[in-house]
């Protein structure tokens, strides 16, 4: 797509793009290049020189038990976050879509969590499940359940999943509701006349017509779980216990800043970069299809 009518001049447009070029070059391309460059070296213990290791950092990472465990943790974590938040959001959107009046009120109430930062969401859930003062912990104790996410790996994972999914419900709800409202009512009424009950209509008509939205949300939520949940994990578990909640992004941070292992951290950045690229390509390919829908 090109504009037919354009203005003359070379210096003015160059001047106009200059601020963005400068900022992108200094704060984006240079650091990204550095990440790739550093991933090929190991700094000596005193930080005085760099030793070329080629793909050594990558080989080391892929044979590292903890790194492979972190991959698995990230996969489990993102799938759970995506399924939980999309499931709850779809349930609420289907209900809100059935209302003739009042769905706007529920929408206003349900978009709140979008405004709550992941790190703040983490603090809220940590407070409820705190081992000493948490309200939920206390009531679970009454029921005879001894909640302790500080020691129990499964409970730690459960807590960061719920806190991350909670913050994401608004977003998914808005897209699901829009998707549902775009389905022509005549189709659904035709099925109803043929005697299809709610569940049958949902399974055979609504769900297939909603699939472009569902697929789009699937990709977007996985990207969210990969990169934007750092705040939740850092506030609730700091990656523990025994690295049970150390997702890949958290590991880049803990190896790079806490562990000061720059070569390994850079190599991890490059691997993440590859993962995002793949996800983005999937997203873009898909979005072209969505336009036709």
């Amino acid at each position, binding site marked *: 797509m090109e504009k037919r*009518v354009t203005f003359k001049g*070379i210096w003015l447009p160059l001047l*106009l793009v200059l601020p963005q070029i400068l900022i992108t070059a200094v704060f984006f391309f240079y650091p990204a290049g550095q990440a790739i460059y550093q991933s090929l070296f190991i700094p000596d213990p005193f930080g005085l020189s760099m030793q070329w290791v080629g793909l050594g950092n990558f080989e080391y990472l892929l044979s590292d038990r903890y790194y492979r465990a972190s991959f698995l943790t990230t996969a489990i974590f993102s799938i759970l976050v995506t399924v939980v938040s999309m499931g709850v959001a779809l349930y609420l959107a289907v209900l809100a879509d059935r209302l003739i009046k009042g769905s706007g009120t529920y929408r206003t109430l*349900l*978009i*709140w969590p979008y405004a709550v930062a992941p*790190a703040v969401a983490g603090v809220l859930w940590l407070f409820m499940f705190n081992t000493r003062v948490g309200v939920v912990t206390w009531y679970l104790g009454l029921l005879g359940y001894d909640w302790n996410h500080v020691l129990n790996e499964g409970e730690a994972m459960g807590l960061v999943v719920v806190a991350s999914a909670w913050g994401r419900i608004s977003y998914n709800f808005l897209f699901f509701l829009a998707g549902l409202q775009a389905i022509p009512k005549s189709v659904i009424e035709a099925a109803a006349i043929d005697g299809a009950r709610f569940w049958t209509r949902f399974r055979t008509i609504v769900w297939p017509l909603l699939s472009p939205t569902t697929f789009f949300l699937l990709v977007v939520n996985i990207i969210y779980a990969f990169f934007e949940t750092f705040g939740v994990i850092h506030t609730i578990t700091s990656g523990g216990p025994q690295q049970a909640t150390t997702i890949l*992004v958290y590991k880049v941070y803990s190896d790079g800043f806490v562990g000061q292992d720059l070569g390994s951290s850079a190599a991890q*950045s490059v691997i993440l970069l590859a993962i*995002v690229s793949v996800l983005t390509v999937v997203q873009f390919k898909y979005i072209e299809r969505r336009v036709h829908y």
Partner: protein
Amino acid sequence: MSERNGMVEKRGGGLWLTHLGLIIGVAFIFFPIWLAFVASTVDQQEIVRPPMPLLPGDQLIENYTKALTSGVNAPVAAMLLNSLIMAMGIAIGKIAISLLSAFAIVYFRFPGRKLFFWLIFLTLMLPVEVRIVPTFEVIANFGMLNSYSGLILPLIASATATFLFRQFFMTVPDELAEAARVDGAKPMRFFIDILLPMSRTNIAALFVILFIYGWNQYLWPLLITTDPSMNTIVMGIKQMFPSGDDIADWPVIMATSILAMVPPVIVVVGMQKLFIRGLVESEK
């Protein structure tokens, strides 16, 4: 929405079940926020002896005053100001540079235009989390640790907004630019008098999204603000937890959490239409 008032809509008992389902959902969503609010209105004693009450107490003013004026490491009022400057800086900065460069790539033919377009496209793919270590080094080398420019600039370096404005400018009728040219208007006149007013809604929608994005940043401020007086409120909350076995000052921490939520919630709920529009547009 009368056309939706068809035979498949629920009546009677079904309607109440639908409302009940939604109310349970809303209650689940709000419970953590409600609990935080209650905790911010009671004193520490009521929290450390569980179970804490589920209805607000009478310490609201005390807790919020304590948080705002002294906090734990730094007064929360200062953190709120830092967050506000960071969020506004990111939103305004990104919109400004994106408008200019989108104008250039749509309305001019200049050498390197295609290359530039692909370069900004590449930046769509890389969140700051992926390149934190080298970006941190750049900021440290520039002496921008603990500064507003250090907080803001790296987060402006992405092209989502440029992309959006490009898409929008492409839909602006050619006749407008043609008329401006015939009238002998300079390009910048056209940009300021015609293009900017036409982009008002898009700018506002994007502003809402970027403000929330900037306000809710966590990892980046955590890395580059080592001085408590430069902390933003969202990252400052975690710093209020004591290390080791001491008991956290929960009422003040929860008051701070509520304060951290209020500005973005006001923006999202108050500008709901723009927010939803911005959300849908920025995902296209």
